[in-house]
């Protein structure tokens, strides 16, 4: 009998195994929900799949009576706008300061301890400051996300720059490259896939800060809606919303991975298709 670490499932078993936990959770939910509803037909805690589907249909098709918006879509648009602003700004900051502190010793001395200390500030603790300074509008939510994830990305990229073998930087100089050319042709292209990796890792954190900000002060957004309907114990809305957020997060992660594979095939060890240039 082979050791269990040496036994690999075949392709079909792999798919079945990976689906199993999802099916298990769904089945357990359905049974638990039916048991509660059998006792009390008005139970709100574990709504039936049917009830959730009805709510979801209402949220995605019926316009809101007051505003005429279809709630799920307007909420999604609002949240994704904030999230993508926050994440894009953080990524740009990360790239800029990561290279600045990674590649140039003077700016590293100047900034790296400062950034290390900044990154220790708990972002939620300064949310009130943001609300006071930037009002309750979109800006303070975007800034919260930036404060939450930019220091992590900056420090990660600084480390990534420092981990590029010194030999490459020396070699580039013997090929006549200036500081700027080294940054543009040696460092930047090697940082793109690492930046995407870093962004993927911080997406969860970005969602956390987004939903926190929306829960506290917003008039739309996925986080706002969840915290609004909590007052009515509307689990039939909350659960689909959570599933939707999870799906969005999963999709954005996948899209980023595909993007990275597309622009940096060398990083992922995939063969370039047009091998003859």
């Amino acid at each position: 009998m082979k050791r269990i670490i040496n036994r690999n499932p075949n392709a079909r078993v792999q798919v079945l195994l990976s689906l199993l936990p999802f099916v298990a959770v769904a089945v357990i939910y359905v049974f638990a929900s039916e048991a509660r509803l059998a006792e009390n037909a008005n139970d709100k805690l574990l709504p039936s799949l049917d009830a959730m589907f009805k709510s979801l249909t209402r949220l995605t098709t019926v316009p809101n009576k007051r505003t005429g918006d279809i709630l799920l879509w307007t909420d999604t648009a609002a949240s994704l706008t904030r999230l993508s602003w926050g994440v894009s700004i953080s990524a740009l900051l990360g790239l800029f300061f990561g290279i600045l502190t990674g590649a140039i010793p003077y700016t590293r001395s100047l900034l790296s301890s400062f950034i290390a200390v900044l990154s220790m500030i708990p972002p939620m603790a300064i949310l009130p400051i943001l609300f006071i300074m930037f009002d309750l509008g979109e800006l303070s939510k975007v800034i919260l996300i930036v404060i939450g994830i930019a220091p992590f990305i900056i420090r990660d990229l600084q480390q990534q720059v420092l981990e590029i073998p010194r030999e490459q930087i020396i070699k580039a100089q013997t090929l006549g490259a200036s500081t700027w050319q080294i940054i543009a042709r040696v460092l930047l292209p090697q940082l793109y896939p690492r930046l995407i990796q870093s962004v993927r890792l911080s997406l969860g954190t970005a969602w956390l800060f987004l939903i926190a900000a929306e829960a506290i002060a917003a008039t739309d957004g996925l986080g706002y809606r969840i915290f609004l309907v909590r007052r009515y114990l509307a689990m039939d809305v909350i659960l689909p919303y959570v599933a939707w957020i999870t799906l969005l997060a999963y999709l954005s992660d996948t899209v980023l991975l595909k993007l990275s594979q597309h622009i940096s095939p060398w990083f992922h060890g995939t063969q370039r298709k047009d091998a003859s240039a």
Partner: protein
Amino acid sequence: MSDIHFKNVWKTYHDQVVLERLNVNIKAGEFCSIVGASGCGKTTFLKLLLGEEAPSRGTIMLGEQRLRAEPGPDRGIVFQRYSVFPHLTVEDNVLFGLEMSESPILGRLFGRSRQRAKDQAKDMLSAVGLEHACGKYPAELSGGMQQRLALAQALIKQPKILLLDEPFGALDPGIRNDTHKLVLDLWRRFELTVFMITHDLKEGFQMGTRLLVFDKVRNDPQAPHAYGARITYDIPLNSDKRKFPVELTASLERSGSSKTDKKLLDFGPGPE
């Protein structure tokens, strides 16, 4: 052509003396093999030549001028590893040097100038036998091919001096021999001055026109860092003078006498 002169060069890191009182002249066009026990300043010597390190005392002259203490296009280098850019294809790796000098802002060439540079890169790649691997990434190449790429990449700048830091250290023996031939061929063809660090004495004897042995002359067991290494043997090589001096064997055994050194000594001079 410019000769290289080391005039009383010292290199120290804090209180640790790595190299002391180096006085050596190297004529343009020589092929210097550099051997010595680990920690005897071979790599420091190469870093001084490269300009990655500046001498603590003394001067290094390249022809009539002081050697600039910063790596530049007049001195090419091939390291044991990490010499090529992993994110660029074989062809782009060789183009890199040309693009740097011709396109200071973008660092990229387009259109006709790119085509011209490409032709030049093609010639260089066929000189090292890589013309069929143009579109591949370095990770898709074998170790020997990567080193040949690193050579092509360095030589496209037409440096006068080529520095090789154990370039064949990671290659298996068959590939090694082919690459030896290639390097000697390139050395003659491009009229280079070559400095090659090697751990393989036989390789050092076979390839060089001159063998420099680095060793510590003085050693204080209480203060191992107090004295640095010097060039203890400077052996001109040609077909007659391949005999391995007895006193050199003894000296190397006395000094490092680590496992690698012993193994190297077993190779001895080549039978040819």
